[in-house]
């Protein structure tokens, strides 16, 4: 598990209120927001701001669509692309 992977899991643990061992069990296919109806727009917005702060990336609003939150693998791939671009 690299730094990006580890930090992203930690942020999700904060937002979802999960324990470290629960987020450590996430695989690329683990469903995120489609499977979690309690995640409203405010929670997603908080998640994005936290990703920017902790992962040192900038996310533009037009890059955000439902697809990147579909699974953990997709969100991680999106984050890696942003970090590589930075």
């Amino acid at each position, binding site marked *: 598990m690299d730094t990006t992977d580890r930090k992203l899991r930690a*942020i999700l643990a*904060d937002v*979802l209120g999960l324990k470290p061992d629960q987020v450590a069990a996430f695989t690329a296919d683990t469903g995120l927001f489609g499977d979690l109806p309690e995640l409203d*727009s*405010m929670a997603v*917005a*908080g998640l994005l701001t936290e990703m920017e702060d902790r992962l040192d990336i900038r996310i533009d609003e037009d890059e*955000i669509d439902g697809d990147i939150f579909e699974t953990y693998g997709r969100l991680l791939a999106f984050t890696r692309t942003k970090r590589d671009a930075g």
Partner: protein
Amino acid sequence: MTPATYPCPLPGGGAAAQEYALTFDQGRNCRVLIAPALFDEGHKLRRFTTEVMRRLDGAGIDCILPDLPGLNESEQDLALIEPEDWRMAIEAAARHFEATHVLALRGGGLVLPGKLGGWHYAPVKGASLLKTMLRARILASREAGREESLDTLMEHGLAMGLELAGYSLSGEMLRQMGELVPGKQPGITAIEHELLGGGALWLRAEADEDRAQADALAAIVAIGVAA
């Protein structure tokens, strides 16, 4: 825990309105005023805030959690409030309750009056608070089939005011809040969240509490008050 009120200056001067405050008040020597987190974070952290207050009370410290005008139970119209009104409200509460220290949480530390020493838990820039609320609005609008952008929303908001996450914010509130940064206050020590351990409760999708975090923050403040 007892409800109380304090006289709070009205925006733009004039007579004072009464605002509510939650207090643990036994007339003890050490009296900590809480500057609550702002907007949605205020709700997410309210349980945590009162849990910290319970622990301070147990450590022999009085504490007071005032409502800021336009937030929580306040009857003032938030759309008429500017950050300076919150600063004056905290100053008025500090005077009324004879506070000896202040504990600010998140955005609450951006509007401290500057007369009391104390602590600022998990400092945040005003611009970050606004950005999260702007994003939430953009995401919610998109779900409803409307496209909005950060720049056009802000431009419109600065001229006409804006409703963000259910809060009506004036252009002046948006402008001033966007410029507020923590760490400018002499006598205020920052307590980064990492020091408490565990996940940040203001990020939690469902409001939650964390006993270990409340223990840790109360201990830092209680030790500091006694020093």
